[in-house]
């Protein structure tokens, strides 16, 4: 099992969700985060002066999938989240040692 952690643009969440559901992975956990990187920050104003915001709103989508499903998942996410400009986001893949479904106590791949 792997955990796929995708940092995406907030406005792309709906599309990413649809893409993942489309290929049969409805299970996911979503977090509001802020991020910075290559994308340049925002200029804002406050009481007559300008200042810079580096950390921009992003959304983190986490889903745990079997090893076999990693490819398809990545494909779906990239397809839905990309607009081709700095700030599109990253996907990280982590090893998972085990998963447990609280309701049943099942563990391993059948828990996800």
């Amino acid at each position, binding site marked *: 099992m792997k955990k796929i952690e995708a940092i995406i643009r907030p406005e792309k969440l709906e599309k990413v969700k649809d893409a993942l559901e489309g290929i049969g992975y409805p299970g996911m956990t979503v977090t509001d985060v802020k991020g910075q990187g290559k994308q340049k920050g925002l200029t*804002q*104003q*406050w*009481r*007559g*002066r*300008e*200042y810079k915001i580096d950390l921009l709103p992003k959304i983190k989508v986490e889903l745990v999938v079997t090893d076999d499903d990693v490819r398809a998942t990545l494909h779906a996410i990239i397809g839905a989240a990309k607009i081709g400009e700095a700030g599109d986001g990253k996907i990280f893949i982590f090893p998972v040692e085990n998963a447990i479904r609280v309701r049943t106590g099942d563990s391993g791949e059948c828990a996800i």
Partner: protein
Amino acid sequence: MDAADTTWVLISTALVFLMLPGVAFLEIGFLRSKNAISVMMQVFTILFVTSIVFLLVGFTLSFGNDIGGIIGDMNFIGLRDIGSQVWEGTTIPAALFFIFQLMFAAVTIALVTGSIAERMSYKAFFLFVIGFSFMYAFPAHWVWGGGWLHDLGKVDFAGSTVVHVTAGAAALAAALVLGRRQGFGVDALGGHSIPFGVLGGFLLWLGWFGFNGGSALAADGVAVNAVLATNSAAAAGALVITLLTWFHLGRPSIVMAVNGSLSGLVAVTAGAGYVSPIGALATGAIAAVITFYAIRLIKDRFQVDDALDVTSIHGLPGVWGSLAVALFADGRVDGVTGLLHGGGWQQLGVQALGVIVVCGFIFAGTTIMLKWIEGVVGLRVSPRDEISGLDLADHRETAYI
């Protein structure tokens, strides 16, 4: 006693009361959430402390029989014997005149909280409010209570000097004595809920109808003129500062628009009853220009951490407004006539004198009082408490969950 005048001043009192939540929400909205409880508690404290102190002694100091032009005597201590009288020179009950004036005292102190926010301890603040309730009685007496400025012929319809120059001078003094907040000049220290700030702005604009309109102390043409001038100056201030912001920063800003409206309101307060709508537009427009550049000067150049720019939004427009009445008054009331309408330089001189003396007195008085409080209980919360926020440190409450 006239029932209609009484009704108008009663409702004006209610409108001025609304300026207290107005100030509270303007401030919490434009400050950080970790100090929202603290700021609301400051404004609420002003309301309940001033209501008692002004009742017991503040009113009689302001409006008791004049002692040497300086202060009132103890004639009305605890509102003794004020019960059913009509207030002299008006057609409203003395008790109503008291409540109306009480609200002015409360608003004046409330304005100062915009400067000292996010660092002063509640203990120190509590003493400050009591002290300031006494200090306020001096300018109030001088100008409105039959004191020496009144005798010189100083006019101040609803308090550009008594309220706003006072608040501005105190704000500047307090900002200097307290020192800067951590992060000043580095972080934006921006607001956490602009909608709350804008709510406050709307309430203040609305409340000002009572503030200026009620100062006629009668439901007459002067009151109507004051309301019209008030609305016009606020609009001009908001428009001008919006254009300035658009020009200098590339985008118009709601925060600055609200500040501009306040600046216009402050400035027209001295002349609301005396000027035409066009005079009011001019007063407000110029006030907004002053405010826009003053904010930059005081915060950026002088590095004074007047958190919500009370000096720039109330103090300086208060000064300008106090002088502007000597330019734009067109003789419609009490024969007050400004330079542009054929009046003389005399009035301008008196207005300037009033501003200078009130400014100096309050600046010095505030500085001394705060230094004294610093000695007794300290002024600021600890740096750690400032970081975690005054809400937790001073009240063990948090504004939001």
